[in-house]
């Protein structure tokens, strides 16, 4: 199994982003995804900057994948998408069907991100025929369902031609909207959002009136209130035939996290750490996502 670092889902200052990737090239991660996937107004790095950074990182021996926006509405966003797909040589992660269309029309291979709705092997087969090389399982699916999808894919005769990736750590991306909830929290209209997401490097906590963490606001994206953590499940993932384990960037302690995951994947952690208090894993067990099921 390989370890990947997902694209940064939050809005970080330019220097923080460069520093993050500098450090990640030194980490034991095998694959690095990068690019803006949440909001086209986030332009601390412009498309050209992301492309240049991707080129630079691809010299580090890691596989570099360019990630595209999940919710495309405006023509300017389509233009960015086409620019990214026109890059020479790097694999692209499509997070919307527009990306799948553009890449498959060019005959280019692609990764389908977790917001592409692949809930069964027939859908996976449709996309495989269009050039899908790897898919990230939708976050709400369970280990059991994943096993069944891969079994069906084997029966349909293409299981060995696609790689499966699982979102295994971080705040889960759960929904996308036309509305910006971070701007709304400041009483700002979306078209004058003043880029306030930059004040929240890990999003904005949305709690119940009893102070239970429910969701995390991240601009137009709504994420899980708790961190999803499948560290104790990496052995099971290997058994199921998962090829890539994804860790989603956090603002601190990423080196430690990546190391822990890598050690667990290599079977070197004799004692897998119990997941942190407050972390959740319900989806993996077919339960409500917010629950923590003992491994």
């Amino acid at each position: 199994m390989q370890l990947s670092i997902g694209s940064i889902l939050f809005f970080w200052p330019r220097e923080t982003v460069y520093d993050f990737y500098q450090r990640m090239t030194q980490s034991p991660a095998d694959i690095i995804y990068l690019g803006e996937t949440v909001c086209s107004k986030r332009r601390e790095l412009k498309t050209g900057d992301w492309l240049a950074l991707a080129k630079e990182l691809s010299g580090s021996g890691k596989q570099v994948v360019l990630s595209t926006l999940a919710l495309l509405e405006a023509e300017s966003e389509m233009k960015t998408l086409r620019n990214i797909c026109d890059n020479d040589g790097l694999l692209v992660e499509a997070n919307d069907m527009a990306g799948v269309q553009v890449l498959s029309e060019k005959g280019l291979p692609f990764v389908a991100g977790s917001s592409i709705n692949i809930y069964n092997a027939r859908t996976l087969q449709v996309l495989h025929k269009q050039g899908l090389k790897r898919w990230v399982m939708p976050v709400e699916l369970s280990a059991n369902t994943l096993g069944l999808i891969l079994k069906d894919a084997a029966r349909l005769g293409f299981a060995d031609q696609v790689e499966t990736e699982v979102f295994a750590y971080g705040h889960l991306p759960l929904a996308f909207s036309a509305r910006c909830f971070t701007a709304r929290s400041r009483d700002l209209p979306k078209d004058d959002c003043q880029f306030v997401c930059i004040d929240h490097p890990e999003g904005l906590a949305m709690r119940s009136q009893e102070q239970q963490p429910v969701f995390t606001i991240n601009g137009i994206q709504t994420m899980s209130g708790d961190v999803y953590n499948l560290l104790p499940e990496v052995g099971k993932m290997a058994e199921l035939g998962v090829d890539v384990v994804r860790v989603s960037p956090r603002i601190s302690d990423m080196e430690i996290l990546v190391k822990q995951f890598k050690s667990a994947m290599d079977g070197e952690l004799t004692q897998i750490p119990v997941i942190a208090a407050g972390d959740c894993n319900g989806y993996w067990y077919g339960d409500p996502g917010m629950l923590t099921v003992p491994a």
Partner: protein
Amino acid sequence: MELVCPAGSFPALKAAVDNGADAVYIGFKDDTNARHFAGLNFNDRKAMKALDYARQRDVKLFVAINTYPQPEGWERWRKAVDMAAELQADAVIAGDMGVLGYAVEAHPDLALHLSVQGSATNYEALKFYQQRFNIRRAVLPRVLSLSQVKHVAQHSPVDLEVFAFGSLCIMAEGRCHLSSYITDESPNTCGACSPAKAVRWEQKGEVLESRLNGVLIDRYQEGENAGYPTLCKGRFDVADHIYHALEEPTSLNTLELIPQLKANNVKAVKIEGRQRSPAYVEQVVRVWREALDSYARDPQSFKADPEWMAVLANVSEGTQTTLGAYSRPWQ
């Protein structure tokens, strides 16, 4: 523009047909559709009766098979598609690529509409579905502004349908897992959002609390209008401020935009609400029929009649309506 109306039951279907629907949409009695609620929807016998009633009055019948099958459920979705084809439904509304692929292979003459659950918000995505599955029409998610709808329409390879009226999803449909994060059911997996089985009401002194799988969604003081605890419409605490952090309880009403929608080449408008009563369907369909006819008679002087708007506001969530993504503060 075609008026597409919801029918969660045979009486609701009659109400829609009798009050001026051009098309009605139904679902079968299982999790193959996005309104999988107890007591709703049609078995094969009822569906046949519905079809007869609609056909005799020259109204089209669409069948929604618009959830995402997981491996164990595949046979149900396959059967649903076969049943819709057998009924000779005027179209199947689907979102899953596996389902669309099966439908186009097994029943090449069956018209396919891309469900809003397919989550196509741009013309490149629409091209994908048109080229692979020959879809004839797509229902757009409620995330686009008018100018964006116009742009999509100008480049779309298929006819477009937009939501006209009803409960408002604040998130791009088909890509919202909020419900399965709190409960174990979501629109994609089970055809349900904030399912009734997970709802609990608790009176605590003068305060009424609504909970979803134990999570406090809202608190109502005495005299406050308590709404169904759809989780995106509750009051939450963000940075020590308690408010409707995602959306107020409100319904979408685009009636005043009929001229713009028409000018933007929108081919059909859809009323949401297969979970609603026949009386609701009757009132909403009647108003929309009158409005569309009034526009057709005299496009230049079309105005949203205050009486229409009052009827619609009265049956709306929180008795208020919004233009949603069509209104400027959202963009």
